[in-house]
């Protein structure tokens, strides 16, 4: 750009004058100041439980949208449930970062199976998974169920099978777990409470 000496002075004077006026308080209308909008205002709140350890803290899961038919829900925030007597709203660092576990690309979202001899994990449906587990359980129980011990006392034990339940389960769920497994003769069942 070619500037004559006179033009150069004019540009300088205009710049200087403009900034001086701004400094003296004649600046354009002040930009508005507002706190960041509360991001959970109309999110859907769902109660749940932290899946990590045996403490089983209550959490509130906030989902985008109001469950309308055309709105696809997505979790946007998770924080402690103040009504849960276990943690009363607080969380540990792992629990406080639950959102990133939910969104993790490594999270298992559906049943998978690795067939004997195969190196590949194959995706299967829940129906297939449950049926498969039931068949394995039945086969194993038929093969190794102990009805009576050496003394001839009825024991009804199934010692070759173990079950992993959840310490986060409610009293009622725990009762059902207990009943179902004991009915099958299962002795070894455990939760992450001792892991």
């Amino acid at each position, binding site marked *: 750009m070619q500037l004559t000496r006179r033009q150069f002075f004019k540009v300088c004077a205009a710049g200087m*004058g403009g900034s*001086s006026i701004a*400094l*003296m*308080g004649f*600046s354009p209308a*002040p*930009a*508005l*100041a*507002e*706190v*960041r*909008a*509360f*991001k959970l*205002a109309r999110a859907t709140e769902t109660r749940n439980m932290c899946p990590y350890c045996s403490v089983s803290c209550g959490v509130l899961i906030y989902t985008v949208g109001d469950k309308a038919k055309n709105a696809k829900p997505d979790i946007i*925030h*998770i*924080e*402690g449930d103040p009504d849960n007597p276990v*943690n009363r*709203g*607080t*969380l*540990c*660092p*792992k*629990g*406080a*970062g639950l*959102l*990133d576990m939910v969104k993790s690309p490594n999270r298992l979202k559906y049943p998978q199976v690795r067939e004997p001899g195969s190196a590949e994990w194959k995706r299967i449906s829940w129906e297939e998974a449950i049926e498969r587990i039931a068949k394995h359980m039945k086969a194993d129980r038929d093969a190794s169920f102990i009805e009576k011990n050496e003394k001839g006392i009825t024991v009804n034990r199934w010692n070759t099978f173990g079950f992993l339940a959840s310490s986060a389960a409610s009293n009622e769920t725990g009762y059902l777990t207990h009943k179902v497994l004991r009915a099958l003769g299962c002795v070894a069942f455990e939760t992450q409470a001792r892991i």
Partner: protein
Amino acid sequence: MALQSLDITRRSATTTPAPALRQTTEVAKLIDVSACIGCKACQVACMEWNDIRDEVGNCVGVYDNPVDLSAKSWTVMRFAEVEEGGRLQWLIRKDGCMHCADPGCLKACPSPGAIIQYANGIVDFQQENCIGCGYCITGCPFNIPRIAKEDGKAYKCTLCSDRVAVGQAPACVKSCPTGALQFGSKEQMKDYADKRIKDLKMRGFEKAGLYDPPGVGGTHVMYVLHHADRPELYSGLPPDPSISPLVSLWKGFAKPLATVAMAAVALGSLFHYVIKGPNEVSKKLEDELEKEEST
């Protein structure tokens, strides 16, 4: 000014008086250092709530991770190993913005509305008005604000002004599993601190006390310290913080002088124009100069 979800008392680089009629409760966060176990739930909750994720750092040999505050880590735990009376003490301090009643960052900020103080005491940065000059860092007696690499704007803890505006506690306070973080009105927090200090004194910490430094007009983030007589033990918490005299000089004394000087220049130019008039060049001289240029 638009309707605010929180009343504003002060804006950076603004002389317009702020609305001052409504009396809102002054809030405060209390950090009870003696109850902190350094679990960093507050750090995680802060990032989760504010939708920022810092880069995964490296272990530097101590528990400090990240090592320092950044534009994406608005609060960090600082772990100090101090030998006191032949005993090793692990002093863990949650570092972050103190929300001073007399904020140095706001005073130093030259961009209108980039830093604001709400009537409840929260000092907030409005990044859209930030010009990235970094004066807030110079102005801060606690060395808190950080400039982001990505957008060149300054960031720091907002005391979750969005949560507080709807009557909720900041994310860090809510998550704290030991209750080392408490939130409420400043008065309530002082009462709670008194109880904690009494308890600490009974347990042998004679010098336990509240950190609410008067040099910055008090803060809206306060500490209960076991060694309140020596706050510097806690990873260099300043014993008597105050705004740098350079900031007061530049924004207090020098600013009106500069305005006067500029007005004088403008007035002088006007007088010069009236008395002397514009500088006329005669037609003859112009012709001569043009001739010289063309040759």
